[in-house]
């Protein structure tokens, strides 16, 4: 019991901070890039907007490739890229590169889905007004898809927490890594329980918050 408390005192704060660091940076990247790529996937596939088969196939294939590589492999594969971007290949910052990549691809598909839920008639009627594509994107696509985009980001957020547990492979640390290092390898069941409970609570909270925001802005 004392041993468990000791470990918690010594490592839990640091691990929580590392998880926070990895997840928050990756989430920001995945949100921005995911929205851009998701939008691109959507408008290049929609004949009413900016249909472009070439761009659509290229971006879609890239997203599919990223999504088909198991995350644990991706962690290793992108090490050279990580070295270029972050300057190091270990630590939580280094882990944000594969995390961001994976989450961006994941998020992009969800965001694309959010846009495709918009009724085609709504888009058509906005085209009939003579509005520019940019105005339609800003005032119709984003307005109509916003609740679904919030839900997509919530799902991405939660997956990121899960993936970040694997970041221990590249010395990323974090709560998940704490569970493996102490809870699993050193038979500290107490640590295992505490970290798992922590993760469950965090995930519950994020989902609750995501649903709440999404509902609050959904006037349909």
């Amino acid at each position, binding site marked *: 019991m004392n041993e468990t408390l000791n470990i918690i005192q010594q490592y839990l704060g640091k691990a929580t901070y590392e998880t926070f660091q990895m997840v928050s940076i990756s989430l920001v990247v995945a949100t921005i890039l995911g929205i851009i790529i998701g939008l691109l996937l959507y408008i290049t596939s929609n004949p009413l907007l900016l249909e472009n088969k070439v761009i659509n196939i290229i971006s879609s294939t890239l997203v599919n490739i990223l999504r088909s590589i198991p995350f644990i492999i991706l962690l290793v594969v992108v090490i050279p890229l990580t070295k270029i971007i972050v300057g190091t290949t270990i630590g939580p910052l280094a882990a944000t590169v594969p995390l961001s990549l994976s989450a961006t691809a994941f998020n992009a598909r969800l965001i694309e889905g959010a846009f495709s839920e918009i009724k085609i008639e709504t888009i058509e009627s906005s085209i*009939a*007004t*003579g509005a520019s594509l940019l105005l339609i994107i800003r005032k119709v696509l984003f307005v*109509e898809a*916003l609740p679904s985009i919030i839900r997509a980001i919530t799902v991405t957020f939660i997956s990121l927490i899960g993936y970040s547990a694997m970041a221990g492979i590249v010395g990323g640390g974090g709560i998940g890594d704490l569970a493996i290092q102490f809870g699993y390898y050193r038979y500290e069941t107490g640590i295992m329980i505490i970290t798992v409970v922590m993760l469950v609570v965090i995930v519950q909270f994020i989902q609750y918050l995501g649903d709440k925001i999404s509902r609050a802005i*959904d006037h349909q």
Partner: protein
Amino acid sequence: MDTLNNRDLDNQSFIELKDISVTFKSKQGIEVNAVSNFSLKIKKGEILGIIGSSGAGKSTIARNINLLEKPSQGDVYFKGEKITNYKGKNLRQIRQKMGMIYQHFNLINRATVRDNIAFNLLASNYEKDKIDLRVDQLLDLVGLKNKKNSYPSQLSGGQKQRVAIARSLSNNPEVLICDEATSALDPETAQEIVKLIKDINSKLKLTVVFITHQMEVAKDLFDRIAVMDNGKLIEVNDSYSIFANQEKEETKLLIDKVTSLKIPKTVLKNNNKAFYQITYVGEKAYLPIISNTIKTFDVDISIIHGKIEYINDKPFGILIITISGDREKEAINYLKEYTSNFTLIQGATNE
């Protein structure tokens, strides 16, 4: 340039659809002709109705006018200008001169009434500070001033269509295209919308192109009617003439929905007299034909069924009658002469 003659020509063919054909490719790869060789001139300021059963190609024609759908063949002219191949900014500017409303309103569901209308104003780069003023004006025009901050989900169908109308009028368009705009509404609400469109047409001198399969609407609203069947324009005339006298069988089928009189079968069966249907249109509608017939030929006339419709404020009457008396034949000849149409709908059953 702007001579009287020219202007008159412009007014006669404010919008011109010239030899339009639209071909779709179905999922099985088969080519389907939605519209074939459709030509029509739309006059400035008129309310033109395009009627036809569903699948006749009416909506496709409506969408050809603002080029939401580009015709596979033929051209669209707006004020004498060929716009068929317009793209980008030119096309967007033309579209700003054409408002459009739809069967299912197609509002931005997650934007307020104000933002829905403001969208059209932003589309035309309307001065930002003046947007709210203009939105108030438009909402006033459609009678929804207190709904500015509501969301579409909080409005009834009729209110949503009013918002859609306000929105479509925001850039002072010269044309209003209505694609089945009353078809999703209950009859009373549809009447209100019809009245509103009529008001707008006279107040703003707006040309209206109205697509519908609802003959009730056609009767009340249109100055002129174009009838479509199977992708083709089969008949075009002023409303009254279309209702009073159809040239084509397909038109007759459509019009009969409103004008025909139904007599219960039992009444027809149990009567030993012949039934005649009389229609009288125009000036003849005001003549005391029935009473003249009775007086002159000393016959009995019973009216079995009848109604008078007013189309563009002109009467159009139908009666179903039976005649008995010694001079029945003469009476019939007289009626044939003085009514627009006199037909035997059923001979006497006991003869």
